């Protein structure tokens, strides 16, 4: 009895201990719900807020918010919880759950449209918008806008790229000429790093340099792209020189200066400044990008320039929202931007700050400023453009360098983009197979056809697959919706296990969140079946056939016990549009026996085995 009591007591103690743990944490939960603003908070203008900034900026932001608390005239007090969240992560996480997201967060400008669409950014008031627009560089301001409305505050204008070089290898006199630089690198056995093969962001610099444009409408419904033009051909010729140099390495890591075959030149941005300085020390040189020469004329390589923005999440409590916007204005003020420049070397977007002596004296930022006349503000860009664009470098590098070869690479780029728009709704909804199959390397979409079955099933024609080949199924020839081996969105590639001819089948659910891919030996769309008075049926059941290893012969899966006089036909796609028997007539069995039906789809002849 005592033991029982003891056991009960112990259990009770355990439960209490667990609950106590929760209790403590529940305390913090209550304060965190307070964050959303209660009636009490509005009166004294004290708010608990969450702020997401990159780790480097955590301390400084904390200090700046304190400064704001101490200096603002309205008596607003913020108790910030500052989390270290990279700009790349903040937008993605905001979108998954805006309600739980931070009240103020830093993000990269290319995320702006996504964030606006998911309701994660609150609009600036007219006055705020005017004063912010007036104080900051126009390129950055336009990145904050969708239409005429302004949704974000400019933080920096330093997301661009320029050239780091090793002064011990590269003579000062050569830094303006790409050809001279390549020759220096090749001679010294060092590398020239520019991430052209895997990043359209860097690659596009060549095309901007010759005056090409690639601009998306804000709603991504159209593009004005002149990469495939005479100017584009010049750019491709310049790119060809770099791609075919033995010194070229497609990388943008400052650490390349310290790698096994060290770099002499790395094209990268301000974020690498401290690393490169630590590696090269006094030998570090910084310059704007060089020019390349085609047909006696020289073209300065252009670049994208981008910026970091600050967003304020929409609030249910008006006073809280207004206070947050005041804080945001303070955080992007000239003073705050200069502070960020001094402590973190973030290049300011504020025009006064940009023109200050300190900023002008910073080598990385001054290289960016030198590069600025050749740079193009990075607007909203369709997600698939990065994939389409980066292929140019490989295609150009692998071409023979002739005008025709280079034009072919550009034509392919233009065709792929055109294919994005010229798709009908049906095409956008249609699925296709893409992969390292049928002699292709992830560049050609193999169409699938929706079958007449109940449900959402898609089939390819019969394809010869080899073990080890990989593929995926995607919708509308874009990667927005794609399925792989585990049936989930963005799943891993399907790997073919056995050689043979297959119909690739996709069973997708209605909201296209799950798609099961299987390799079939028959297809409901254009595979063949046996139908007739076989196996006790009376022209009312289709019996499956399987494609054979020659890719054209189909054999029935079952052996049928047939008596003489049994009639049947072999039909395609479970309908009577195409069917074969004995010519157009039914096939009539001569003698009793157990037969496999063999059908040669090229000739339409049936044999019994």
């Amino acid at each position, binding site marked *: 009895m005592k033991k029982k009591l003891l056991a009960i007591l112990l259990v009770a103690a355990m439960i209490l201990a667990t609950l106590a743990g929760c209790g403590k944490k529940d305390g913090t939960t209550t304060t965190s719900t307070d964050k959303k603003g209660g009636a009490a908070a509005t009166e004294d203008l004290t708010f608990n807020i969450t702020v997401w900034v990159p780790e480097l900026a955590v301390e400084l932001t904390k200090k700046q918010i304190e400064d704001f608390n101490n200096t603002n005239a309205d008596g607003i007090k913020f108790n910030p919880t500052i*989390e270290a969240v990279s700009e790349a992560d903040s937008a993605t996480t905001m979108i998954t759950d805006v309600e739980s997201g931070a009240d103020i967060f830093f993000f990269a400008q290319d995320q702006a449209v996504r964030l606006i669409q998911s309701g994660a950014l609150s609009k600036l008031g007219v006055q705020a918008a005017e004063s912010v627009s007036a104080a900051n560089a126009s390129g950055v301001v336009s990145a904050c806008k969708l239409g005429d409305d302004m949704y974000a505050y400019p933080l920096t204008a330093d997301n661009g790229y320029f050239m780091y070089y090793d002064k011990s290898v590269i003579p000062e006199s050569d830094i303006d000429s790409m050809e001279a630089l390549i020759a220096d690198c090749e001679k010294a056995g060092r590398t020239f790093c520019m991430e052209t093969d895997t990043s359209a962001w860097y690659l596009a610099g060549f095309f901007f340099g010759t005056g090409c444009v690639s601009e998306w409408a804000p709603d991504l419904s159209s593009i004005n792209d002149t990469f495939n033009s005479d100017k584009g051909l010049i750019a491709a010729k310049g790119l060809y020189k770099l791609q075919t140099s033995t010194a070229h390495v497609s990388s943008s890591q400052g*650490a390349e200066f310290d790698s096994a075959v060290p770099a002499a030149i790395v094209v990268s941005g301000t974020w690498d400044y401290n690393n490169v300085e630590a*590696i090269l020390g006094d030998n570090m040189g910084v310059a704007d990008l060089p020019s390349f020469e085609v047909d006696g004329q020289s073209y300065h390589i252009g670049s994208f320039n981008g910026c970091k923005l600050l967003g304020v999440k929409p609030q249910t409590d008006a006073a809280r929202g207004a206070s947050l916007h005041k804080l945001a204005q303070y955080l992007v003020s000239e003073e705050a931007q200069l502070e960020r420049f001094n402590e973190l070397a973030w290049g300011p977007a504020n025009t006064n700050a940009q023109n200050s002596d300190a900023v002008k004296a910073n080598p990385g930022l001054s290289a960016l400023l030198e590069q600025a006349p050749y740079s193009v503000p990075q607007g909203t860009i369709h997600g698939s453009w990065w994939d389409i664009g980066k292929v140019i470098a490989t295609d150009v590098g692998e071409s023979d360098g002739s005008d025709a070869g280079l034009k072919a690479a550009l034509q392919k780029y233009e065709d792929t983009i055109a294919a994005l728009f010229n798709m009908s709704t049906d095409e956008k909804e249609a699925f296709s197979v893409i992969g390292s199959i049928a002699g292709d390397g992830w560049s050609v979409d193999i169409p699938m056809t929706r079958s007449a079955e109940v449900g959402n099933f898609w089939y390819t024609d019969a394809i010869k697959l080899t073990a080890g080949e990989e593929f995926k199924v995607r919708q509308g020839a874009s990667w927005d919706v794609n399925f792989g081996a585990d049936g989930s969105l963005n799943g891993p590639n399907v790997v073919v296990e056995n050689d043979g001819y297959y119909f690739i089948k996709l069973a997708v659910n209605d909201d296209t969140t799950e798609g099961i891919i299987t390799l079939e030996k028959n297809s409901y769309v254009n595979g063949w079946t046996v139908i007739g008075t076989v196996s006790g049926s009376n022209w009312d059941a289709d019996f499956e056939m399987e494609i054979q290893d020659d890719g054209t012969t189909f054999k029935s899966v079952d052996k049928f016990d047939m008596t003489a006089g049994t009639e049947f036909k072999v039909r395609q796609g479970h309908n009577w549009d195409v069917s074969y028997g004995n010519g157009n007539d039914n096939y009539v069995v001569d003698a009793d026996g157990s037969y496999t039906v063999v059908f040669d789809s090229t000739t339409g002849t049936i044999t019994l085995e």
Partner: protein
Amino acid sequence: MSKNTNKPGLGMSAKRKISDTVIYIVLILMSIIWLTPFVCIVLQSFRVENTWQVGYVIPKVWGLDNYKNILSTDFVKWYSNTFIMACFVSVLQTIIVLCMSYTLSRFRFRMRKPLMKFMLVLGLFPGMLTMIILYRVLKDLGLTMENAVPGLILVYIASSGMGYYISKGFFDTIPISLDEAARVDGANRLQVLITMIAPLSKSIIIYTLLNGFMGPWADFIFAKYISFNTSAGMNVAVGLNSWLSKDMIATRYTMFCAGGVLVAIPVTLLFMFFQKYYVAGVTNGSVKG
């Protein structure tokens, strides 16, 4: 045997030597391939001349700076979060699994078989499918973000009863007459489980404890969602991952390696001490149920 050795040409022992050599070469190659990343991480964690990725493996300057520095970051918080979760999960999960499997092994009740089948089928669904709804539920309970630790403990132990197979298989091999003898002597069911069955199932219990302990160290996806960018609620995997962003990696890469080594320590230690039970646990339970 003796006949063979008398024959000219390769004798049995020579053949064995050759095949052994080949096998050992293959095994050594495989272990080199398999161990290289781990060795690299350990070596990088002692590199102090710089903090970014470099093109060589052996540090030029050795030191413990990375380990010292990492103690002043949030890593300590992430580590203790994960450790707390691991302890809770291993204990709670073991209790649940033992009760579950004892019940399924010893009791005969209606729907027992269908229940087992149902759990088997349920277990076949990938756990990730429940992520969105779990996030909503935990958020409404206030168990996300800085309170992610209790939330994640709930997530990890919630379905642990379904992992009863191995221990039920083992319990089935313990003669039921032992239970009966104890019952005749006046023990109740709990006493039977604790005093009779548990000592006999040490290996299974330790196996379950170890499994439960390891889970939280490796989880990323649930932990990432439920901690929702809040440092105080992250586990080591999510926290360390946040150091790999473009602007952080150059200053945090070697610390990241040091963190990886620290994470490996408790799991490695546990395995070294309990390895024999672990193997015994897996093989014992595999007797047909």
